[in-house]
């Protein structure tokens, strides 16, 4: 093995400086539940490992004055689960993150790592897309933001610019009558990779959907925002016709692969089924908020 370096900067500027200086030979370490496995298999051979867990911004959960949340990219699933208000405002986002791996993995794994890993099947991503999360990035040219759905570029690839680091996610304030949910289909009962994952976020007023977003995972090279499904739900009272139209929009959006976990036909069908089930859960939660 070639010379390898580990650094744990305490500021973002230092981290970005080191990352940019390494010119592609560095990897960011958050929870390490993907990176260390990749290093062990030889799939990743970083010259420098930049641990971002000593940086306040990447490891904290802030509540915005408007009622939103800013979640550091390296905050573990276990820490998120213990937050007193995050799970009330965004139960779907939280359940999606908490589905990833075992108790031990939850002690380390982060939403930031899940997104940067670039897997089309990353469980937290469809829920973040449905939530309308915005990612906050910092690179050699300063800060910028992008909608989370614009972040993945393909399996294992992201739209981070060279030297740029994912700092945090901003979740918007929650209007009254809002709820979200995430469901996935896996071949076993727990701890597996999604065959299909669906995130839904709804806002209802007097039973009518006034806002909706749908994120769809594991059925295309990247996680998808399905605007046609949201359009089918908005303005409806979640009648069967609206649900069928939204389910059909999800199925139509799928461009899946055939693999041992699921065939193309199966994934397309299940995308619609999960959409309807996730809408039901999100609507029920919206009724309580």
């Amino acid at each position, binding site marked *: 093995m070639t010379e390898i370096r580990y650094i744990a900067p305490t500021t973002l500027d230092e981290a970005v400086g080191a990352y940019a200086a390494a010119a592609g030979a560095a990897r960011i370490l958050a929870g390490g539940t993907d990176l260390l496995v990749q*290093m062990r298999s030889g799939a990743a051979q970083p010259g420098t490992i930049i641990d971002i867990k000593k940086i306040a911004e990447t490891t904290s959960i802030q509540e915005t004055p408007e009622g939103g949340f800013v979640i550091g990219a390296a905050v573990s699933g276990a820490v998120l689960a213990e937050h007193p208000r995050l799970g009330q405002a965004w139960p779907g986002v939280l359940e999606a993150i908490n589905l990833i791996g075992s108790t*031990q993995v939850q002690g380390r794994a982060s939403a930031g790592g899940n997104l940067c890993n670039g897997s089309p099947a990353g469980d937290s991503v469809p829920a973040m897309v449905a939530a309308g999360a915005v990612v906050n990035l910092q690179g050699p040219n300063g800060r910028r933001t992008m909608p989370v759905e614009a972040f993945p570029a393909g399996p294992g690839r992201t739209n981070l610019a060279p030297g740029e680091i994912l700092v945090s996610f901003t979740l918007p304030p929650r209007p009254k009558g809002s709820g979200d949910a995430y469901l996935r289909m896996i071949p076993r009962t727990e701890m597996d990779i999604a065959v299909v994952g669906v995130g839904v976020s709804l806002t209802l007023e007097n039973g009518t959907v006034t806002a909706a977003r749908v994120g769809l995972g594991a059925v295309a090279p990247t996680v998808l925002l399905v605007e046609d499904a949201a359009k089918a739900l908005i303005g409806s009272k979640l009648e069967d016709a609206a649900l069928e139209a939204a389910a059909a929009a999800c199925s139509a959006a799928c461009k899946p692969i055939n693999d041992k976990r699921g065939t193309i036909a199966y994934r397309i069908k299940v995308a619609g089924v999960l959409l309807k089930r996730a809408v039901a859960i999100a609507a029920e939660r919206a009724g309580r908020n």
Partner: protein
Amino acid sequence: MAKMHVTTTINGEPEEFLCDPHDSMLDMLRGALGLTGAKEGCGTGDCGACSIMLDGRLVCSCLMLAPEAEGKKIDTIEGMARGETLHPLQQKFLEMAALQCGICTPGVLMASRALLERNPDPTESEVRFWLAGNLCRCTGYDKIVRAVMETAAEMRGAAR
């Protein structure tokens, strides 16, 4: 290769060691530190045999770099018994034969203790979910789950 000097706390005692930047915490524990209780089952975070506590949180030591231990508090299975006095979970695992080959046992015990510290009265489902990241190829899990439930009941009784 330049070694890194790491200062940490293991089972309540100050500890320091030299490591390579890419060494896993599990490698350090089992190697230079001579704490061989944590086992390497898979090396990929699937089996939980290497479970330790890092600042009070259950993690796989195979998925942690040794330099990450700097300034942290680490607890391993070696710190579970108080001298000759076994932790109630350890005692109950013996009484109820909740282990066979023993490879998974240190990780199962660390995970079970972490559960009971958070939730002294778990349901069977909660125990099974919490321990889902600890693979055992001998017992079929039933005796493990029963021993954890029984220990929880005893510890609740003792706390009254």
